[in-house]
C-alpha cells in the first residue's frame, strides 16, 4: 500500500509543473486551514450577535407585553385619554378589516400587472425594441416604488383619497393608500414566481391548442401560486406593521368599525385605528407604556404567525406541485 501511494505521489509531483515541494505544500495548506477557521469564526460571531439582538428585542417586547395581556385586554376597546385605559379589541378588528380590504384591492391589481408584464408584454412574448425598453422602465419604477419611504404613499393617499376625492379619514382611503404601498411587492413577487415556471409547461399547453389565457389560467398560475401567495402574505405583514400611511389616511378612531357585511358603506367611510397605529398613539400621546408593550407583543406575535404561514404555505404548495401531496 505504501509503495503504491508513494509512486502516485512521485508521479503527480513530476507531472504537475507548478507543484511545490512537499513541505511548501503542507505549510500552505496549514495557512489556508487557518484562514478558513478565522473566516468561520468571524461569520459565526456576526451571525450570533445578529440573532442575539433579534432575540433580545423580540423577547423584551414579549416579556413586557405579557404582563398586561389577558383576555380582557384583548376583548375590551381602548377608552382613550391620557392614561391609555382599556384594551385593544377594536384595533385588532380594524387591522383585520383593513388588511382584508387592502388585499382585496391590491392582490388582483398586482397579480394582474405581474402577469401582464411577464406573460403578455415581457419575457414570454420575446418582446423587443421600444416595448422591451418600456417594460424595463416600468420594472425600474416598480422596484423604486418598493424602496420609497412609506410616508410618501401616505401623503399621496392623503392628497388624493382623503382630500381630493373627499373620502376623509376612512377605511377606503387607507386601503387604497395601503394598496399603493404593497402593489410593488405583489407585482415583483408575481413576476418572479411566473419567471420560475418552466417554459416547457407553457409550450406544452399552447401546443395542445390552448389559448394564452387558458395556458396562464390553467397551467402557469397554478404553478406560480406558491410564489404569488408568498408575495400576498408578505404584503399582509407590511400592512399589519405599517403606521405612517395609515396615520394620515385612517385617522385614529378607536371605536369599533361597522361590519363590512352588514353596513358596507358605513364600513368604507369609517375611520379606525390598526394595532400598529394604536401602539404609535399609546407611545406618543399617553403614559401607558405597559399597554403599548402589550399591543406591541400582540403585533409581534401576529407578524411571526404571518411568516410561519408563508413558510408553511409555500412548502405545502411546492410539495403538491411536485406531486408529493
Amino acid at each position, binding site marked *: 500500500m505504501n509503495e503504491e501511494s508513494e509512486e502516485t505521489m512521485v508521479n503527480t509531483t513530476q507531472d504537475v509543473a507548478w507543484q511545490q515541494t512537499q513541505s511548501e505544500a503542507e505549510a500552505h495548506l496549514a495557512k489556508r486551514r487557518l484562514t478558513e477557521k478565522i473566516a468561520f469564526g468571524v461569520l459565526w460571531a456576526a451571525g450570533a450577535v445578529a440573532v442575539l439582538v433579534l432575540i433580545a428585542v423580540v423577547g423584551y417586547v414579549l416579556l413586557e407585553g405579557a404582563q398586561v395581556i389577558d383576555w380582557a385586554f384583548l376583548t375590551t376597546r381602548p377608552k382613550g385619554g391620557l392614561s391609555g385605559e382599556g384594551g385593544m379589541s377594536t384595533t385588532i378588528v380594524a387591522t383585520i378589516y383593513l388588511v382584508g380590504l387592502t388585499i382585496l384591492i391590491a392582490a388582483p391589481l398586482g397579480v394582474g400587472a405581474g402577469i401582464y408584464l411577464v406573460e403578455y408584454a415581457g419575457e*414570454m*412574448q*420575446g*418582446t*423587443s425594441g421600444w416595448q422591451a425598453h418600456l417594460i424595463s422602465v416600468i420594472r425600474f419604477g416598480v422596484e423604486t416604488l418598493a424602496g420609497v419611504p412609506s410616508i410618501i404613499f401616505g401623503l399621496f393617499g392623503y392628497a388624493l383619497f382623503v382630500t381630493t376625492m373627499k373620502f376623509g379619514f376612512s377605511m377606503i382611503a387607507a386601503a387604497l393608500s395601503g394598496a399603493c404601498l404593497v402593489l410593488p411587492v405583489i407585482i415583483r413577487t408575481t413576476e418572479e414566481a411566473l419567471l420560475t415556471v*418552466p417554459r*416547457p*409547461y*407553457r*409550450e*406544452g*399547453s*399552447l*401546443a*395542445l*391548442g*390552448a*389559448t394564452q389565457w*387558458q395556458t396562464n389560467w*390553467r*397551467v402557469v398560475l*397554478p*404553478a406560480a401560486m406558491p410564489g404569488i401567495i408568498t408575495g400576498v402574505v408578505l404584503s399582509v405583514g407590511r400592512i399589519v406593521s405599517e403606521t405612517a400611511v395609515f396615520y394620515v389616511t385612517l385617522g385614529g378612531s378607536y371605536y369599533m368599525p361597522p361590519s363590512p357585511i352588514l353596513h358596507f358603506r358605513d364600513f368604507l367611510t369609517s375611520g379606525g385605528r390598526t394595532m400598529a397605529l394604536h401602539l404609535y398613539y399609546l407611545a406618543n400621546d399617553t403614559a401607558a407604556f405597559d399597554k403599548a408593550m402589550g399591543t406591541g407583543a400582540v403585533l409581534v406575535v401576529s407578524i411571526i404567525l404571518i411568516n410561519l404561514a408563508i413558510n408553511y404555505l409555500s412548502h405545502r404548495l411546492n410539495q403538491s*406541485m*411536485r*406531486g*408529493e401531496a
Partner: protein
Amino acid sequence: MTGSEIKLETQNFDLYYGNFQALDDISLQIPANQVTAIIGPSGCGKSTFLRAFNRMNDLIPGVHTDGEISMEGENIFNMDVVALRRRVGMVFQRPNPFPKSIYDNVTYGPRVNGLRDRDKLDEIAERSLRGAALWDEVKDDLGKSGLALSGGQQQRLCIARALAVEPDVILMDEPASALDPIATLRIEELIRELKEDYTIVIVTHNMQQAGRVSDYTAFFYTDESRTGILVEFDNTKKIFTNPSDQRTEDYITGRFG
C-alpha cells in the same frame, strides 16, 4: 413519392432568429400517414424546422420567416394559430407533463377545446392512454401526479396528451433521447402503430432509430457559411443505402463507423 397524399408542404421556407438565418430555402413535402424523419448534425436546424409546422417559433423573440408552409394546401400562416395547433400536435424532447394528475394531463387538450362531458372525457382519457401504451400501467392511479411517473412513462403520457385532441399530424422532437433503451423501443413501436392514423414527423439523432421507424428521411446540414439547408429528402431506404449526396453518405456512415 408518388401514390401518397401530401399532408404538409414547405416552399422556399426561410427562418431567421434576428439576423441569423437558421433555415435556408427549404422545400419539401411530407406525405400523409407516413413517418418522416429529420436527421442531421447538431445545430443544423432540425428543431427549428419541426417547430415551424405548429408555429411554435412564433413564441421566440425576433423570429421572422419567408416562404410558405401549407397543410392540405392551406397556408398555415393564414390559419388561426390555436386551430392550427389543435391539428398539429407536438411531443417535446424532454417529457413535459403538467404538474397535474395523469387524468388532468390527458384531458387537458379536450378541455381547453371546450369539452365538458365527464363520460366523454373519461372515454378519451382511456383511449389516448391505450393509444400511448400507458393505460395498463396507470389505469388504477389516474389521480396520481404526472410528475410522479418515470421518464419513459412521462413521455408516453405526453404522447397520450397529444393524441387526446385527435390531431392530424404529430411532431416529435427527439422523443426518446431522454429515455433508456427499453423505453425507447416502446416509443418506437408506438410510432409505427400511430402512423395508421396520424402523419408523423420526428427529429432524431439516432440513425438506427431513423432507419427503424421512418418511411422518409430528410437530411439537414450546416456548414461554416450556411445553417438549415436541406441536402436530401427521399425514401428512408434510399437515404440509408444509396444516398445521392456525398455529405449524406459521410454523415450516415460516420455515425456507423
